[in-house]
């Protein structure tokens, strides 16, 4: 075991892994994290705790991860390259490990201009850091863990033992390069990969075939990303505006049909779309898990954590495996 995390153990056991996502609040109040952690607990093997996602200030990933951990939910702390230089990154990684965290996902991070796609003020005038990029951050974590060395070469008396993750946008531009992008992260030391949301199964399978041809599925655990659709509008938005996400028209049509079936009843339209959205999600989970080389799913029910229980049960992924304490 590299880290001994629950996520690592599930993956090592050969069973499909399930991760979910918990977005920390824009507040100093821990109760929302506690509430969400208890909603997700038992229905996933670990939950990503986002690091100021959409470039908006929230409870830090490490702090929220510790709060979730105290509730019995294993966290995957996230670290963006946007906000810290390598000194701050490594200091935070040592601190996170000292607090008991065992999974870390390395990501570039949304640009500071994003500000929740313009819905919030955010901090578009902030200075970004990008001292290192995702690939380099993965390499830093690996060097710390496996060689007991800091990036600069100084020794660590006790190395932080992280299960190292990175993200992958299989359907992003330039599409020919995406399998190599994955290869670089795997070569740098990524133990697991969580992908951008997948709706276009054919496209994803074609990219996975290229990844398999590079032997990457044997060297890392690819968890296919599933973003739970809640409304037809959300699917349309993701198709047109979210980089690397293509939504087939058939899925948008299905959600539209669900919406129209309710006539003018807005409450019912919402309910019917949610039911259809969960149905689509469960189908996508099966299709992603049937794709050769995939080791699990990363399910994001954005601001809808209560949906996870039903989805995981309907997908036949409940109960989650448990292991005796190491």
């Amino acid at each position: 075991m590299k880290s001994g995390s629950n996520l690592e153990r599930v993956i090592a056991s050969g069973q499909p892994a399930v991760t979910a996502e918990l977005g920390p609040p824009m507040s100093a109040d821990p109760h929302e994290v506690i509430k969400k952690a208890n909603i997700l607990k038992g229905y996933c093997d670990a939950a990503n705790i986002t690091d100021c996602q959409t470039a908006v200030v929230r409870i830090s990933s490490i702090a929220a991860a510790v709060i979730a951990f105290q509730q019995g939910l294993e966290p995957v702390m996230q670290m963006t390259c946007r906000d810290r230089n390598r000194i701050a990154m490594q200091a935070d990684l040592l601190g996170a490990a000292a607090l008991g965290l065992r999974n870390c996902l390395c990501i570039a991070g949304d640009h500071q201009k994003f500000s929740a796609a313009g819905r919030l003020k955010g901090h578009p005038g902030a200075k970004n850091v990008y001292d290192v990029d995702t690939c380099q951050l993965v390499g830093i974590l690996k060097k710390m863990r496996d060689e007991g060395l800091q990036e600069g070469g100084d020794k660590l008396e006790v190395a932080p033992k992280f299960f190292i993750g990175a993200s992958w946008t299989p359907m992003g531009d330039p599409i020919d390069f995406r399998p190599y992008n994955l290869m670089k992260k795997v070569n740098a030391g990524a133990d697991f990969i969580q992908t951008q949301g997948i709706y276009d199964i054919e496209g994803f399978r074609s990219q996975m075939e290229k990844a398999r041809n590079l032997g990457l599925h044997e060297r890392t655990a690819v968890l296919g990303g599933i973003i739970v659709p809640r409304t037809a509008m959300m699917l349309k938005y993701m198709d047109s505006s979210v980089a690397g996400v293509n939504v087939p028209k058939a899925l948008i049509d299905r959600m539209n049909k669900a919406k129209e079936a309710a006539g003018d009843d807005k409450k019912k339209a919402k309910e019917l779309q949610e039911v259809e959205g969960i149905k689509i999600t469960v189908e996508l989970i099966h299709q992603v898990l049937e794709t050769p080389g995939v080791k699990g799913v990363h399910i994001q029910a954005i601001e809808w954590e209560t949906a996870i229980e039903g989805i995981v049960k309907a997908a036949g992924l409940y109960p989650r495996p448990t292991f005796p304490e190491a």
Partner: protein
Amino acid sequence: MIVGTQKPFDEVWEMVKDHKKILVFGCNTCVAICHAGGGKEAEILASMIRMKALEEGREMEVKHAAIERHCEPEFFEPVMEEVRTYDLVLSTACGVGVNFLSERIGEIPVYPGINTSFFGAVPEAGVFTELCAGCGNCILHLTGGICPIARCSKTLMNGPCGGTNKGKCEVSQEIDCAWYLIVERMKKLGTLDKLAEIQPPRNWSTARDGGPRRVSLEHIRAYEEREEQKSELAGGKKQ
């Protein structure tokens, strides 16, 4: 070239309004090409200040002048005596020019008349694009001649992030994704395999992160010194 843009006039007025004798001092190289601070722009800015002063009922003498370059001492020599007669120089040179003149002018303030933006090129008339960040450690041979430091919004070194959308950057549809361009260019050059190699964390000390930079060419300095001595000796003999 260095690309600059004009400052909002209100900001300029706030800087200059309490001065009596002002020289708007243009530079006829880079900032003239980008229509920000050449002799012509200095002249226009000087007349705008005069008009504003008239409107505000302030007594002000505002003149303009320009030299070819504000970054080497010899260009200043013919005009320095005149420049020192003003109580404010509003320089429309780049920031290099403002600093350089400030160090040489004595007790007269030098204020910036423009914003210095970046190192760039002129792909078409009236358009200027940033192409180099002056990081001090060029890797363009590894990236098809397209710089990820200057042109990727996140200065990523190992490939695109997840934000590339139809070849554009997540920051704006107006910005090309540098990594999209790099991959397409290297496909054409048949060198895409070069991108498979991981670029390790960079040593940023060659960039601004290492503190203000200075290049000193010892052989040139030694040559100049010898030439100076020679001319001094020659001068001595004549006397």
